[in-house]
């Protein structure tokens, strides 16, 4: 073990006063406080998150209801939310006009339902809404053009929303209330009382597009996730590649030969954070969540190096600390990197056999088929004893 690793033990947290000024760190982000309304959110879910980590998406309404927040829970299905078109726009297969129209329609639906705050669950979508908002400010005549197109397309009118927030902003705003009134657990190692070390990974389209006005805490020392880590008992890790992109990139998703960039980016981050011995990674971007989680497996396959640092969304983290069932509600069985070691550290009980149960505790009809396919691939299934 080299000196760098030796110093990365708990001792690092004490010694860091010599190399890291915690007080200055706490002061620097306060230059960028954004206004987050207390209540009244028009929730726009994420396309990617619901598919990859359904428990995470399902946790949002539970948290909002627990906090007794007013949100668009009773919106009629026929006027429901659509995709923001962000993936198509950033992948260069759709025009900005289509995206402007799509967001204008969503804003119109929100305004019709009486909400002036758009709360977006996806970071790309947050970037898209923020960018569209900014375009109206910058381009004279654009509003009139989209007004006309929206009326022609679906007979709707719209105004610019008063607030655009990310759902992580909302959870950040209520983080202390969640801890004090509802949480059963804290980010503290049960056996030793050690605060768990958390890496925050903030999505690029949250804190790099409009760092001054849209990112809580600014672009460099974004506070939205690390604020939750610290409030819930953990310690944030500041490592050199902290601001490095996860490597998702819409082009990498679409062009197979470029996919190596993603694994390379995640590898870069892992190599950089590893000496600090993080206990978990927390994300607020569905894309980052997917790739930081899945690529750790790819890195193991490619390089033989097993980092396996659990990657959680802030909603999943909140859900777990709430004491909600890790499988039935939070859905940690959808993760590639096992989350159970983190649960062991915190002392959250779990029953692994529940990881493959369907709705209402029913056995999945396809379970046998899954088991056979897994066995044929020479792998094991977590929580399912092999025949």
């Amino acid at each position: 073990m080299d000196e760098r690793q030796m110093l990365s033990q708990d001792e690092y947290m004490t010694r860091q006063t010599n190399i890291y000024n915690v007080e200055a760190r706490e002061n620097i982000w306060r230059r960028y406080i954004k206004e987050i309304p207390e209540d009244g959110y028009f929730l726009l879910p994420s396309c990617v998150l619901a598919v990859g980590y359904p428990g995470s998406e399902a946790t949002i309404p539970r948290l909002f209801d627990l906090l007794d927040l007013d949100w668009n829970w009773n919106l009629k299905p026929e006027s429901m939310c659509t995709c923001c078109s962000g993936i198509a726009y950033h992948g260069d297969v759709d025009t900005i006009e289509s995206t402007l129209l799509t967001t204008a329609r969503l804003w119109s639906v929100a305004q019709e339902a009486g909400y002036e705050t758009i709360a977006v669950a996806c970071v790309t979508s947050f970037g898209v809404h923020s960018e569209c908002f900014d375009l109206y400010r910058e381009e004279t005549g654009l509003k009139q053009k989209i007004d006309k197109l929206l009326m022609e397309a679906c007979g709707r009118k719209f105004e610019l929303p008063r607030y655009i927030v990310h759902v992580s902003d909302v959870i950040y705003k209520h983080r202390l209330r969640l801890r004090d009134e509802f949480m059963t657990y804290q980010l503290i190692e049960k056996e030793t009382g050690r605060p768990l070390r958390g890496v925050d990974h903030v999505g690029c389209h949250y804190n790099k597009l409009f760092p001054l006005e849209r990112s809580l805490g600014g672009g460099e020392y974004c506070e939205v996730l690390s604020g939750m880590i610290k409030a819930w008992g953990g310690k944030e890790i500041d490592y050199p590649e902290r601001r490095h992109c996860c490597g998702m990139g819409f082009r990498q998703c679409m062009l197979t030969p470029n996919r190596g960039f993603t694994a390379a980016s995640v590898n870069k981050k892992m190599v950089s954070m590893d000496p600090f011995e993080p206990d978990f990674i927390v994300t607020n971007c569905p894309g980052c969540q997917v790739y930081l989680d899945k690529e750790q497996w790819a890195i193991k396959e490619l390089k033989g190096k097993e980092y396996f640092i659990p990657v959680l969304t802030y909603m999943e983290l909140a859900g777990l600390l709430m004491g909600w069932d890790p499988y039935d509600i939070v859905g940690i069985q959808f993760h590639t990197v096992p989350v159970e070691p983190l649960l062991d550290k915190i002392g959250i009980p779990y029953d692994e056999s529940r990881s493959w149960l369907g709705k209402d505790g029913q056995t999945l009809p396809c379970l046998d088929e899954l088991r056979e396919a897994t066995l044929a691939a020479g792998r094991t299934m977590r929580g399912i004893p092999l025949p």
Partner: protein
Amino acid sequence: MERKVVILGGGVAGMQTAIALNDLGISSVLVEKEQELGGRVKNYDKTFPFFHSGKELVKELEDRVRRAHLVEIRCGTTVSHVEGQATHFQARLGTGSYEIPAGAVVVATGFEPFDASLQEEYGYSIYKNVITATELERLLDPEELTQGEIRRPSDGKIPQRVAIVFCVGSRNEKLGHNYCSRICCSFSTKQAIEIKERHPDTVVTCFYIDIRTYGRGFEEMYRRAQEMGIIYIRGRVAECGVLPNGDVTIKAEDTFLGKPIQGVFDLVSLSHGMTPALDAPKIATMLDIDVAEDGFFECRDKDLYPNDATREGVFLAGAAIGMKPIPDCIADGNAVAARVAAFLAEMQERN
């Protein structure tokens, strides 16, 4: 009509103005907000490009100004209020009722070093081993704590790998500082040479956008630095990070190679640029003169009257009108004294 001149600021430009006015037979009151004369230069161990002692330079000027019988020195106070018109100003000092009748006012209020913590990507104020050029100058000063040895703040070790990042807070549109601070390239090159002289095994790497060594002897100093083995990499540093042992990582671009590069350093010094004096807007309001877009005082005409403010009877010297090295500040002092003398003579003739 009054012939006395009030000079705001007792740095090198202010002192030289007072000395030159004295030589011309004009009395002045030199007002310095600090307890000592000398402004920023009194903290410089060595000046560039000739490695003279900043302290001795200030001492020499101070001796001259104290010997000048037409100069009244007022330290530890500021001009708080100015009334009246050119040739009939009344300048009040501090909170008291002491007023100085003045024919003209000279503003030589200098500059403020850029607060490097505002360029957040470099982690200054958070990472202990990221320091500023001003702090490095103190490390280089034999009269300071480390007795002139470079020791990094986290553990007191002599750094083997030092990075100097140029243009911190200068030529930066994001920060609203589009101007070049002019002196930092040379100042930091001077510091790089001093590090290399004291610790020959230490590798010093300078990251720059362009090297602007325009003055007499500056380019020669830059050449000497390169010949000593100091590495110059053309490219802006994107960000700094810290490792558990306190080493600082740097991500940058090498624009000659056209590639992003990375490195690990024991100590990083930020060559921070200069900003207008913090009280410049207040002084501008008090004297009813303009500040330019860059925050420095506006000149009556940048080509023909670079030392005249936008109001009759008010003159400007030194870094108050933009960054300049010490010899230029001295030249400014002489130029302003000549302008003031000409102005007062003209006004007297008119009356």
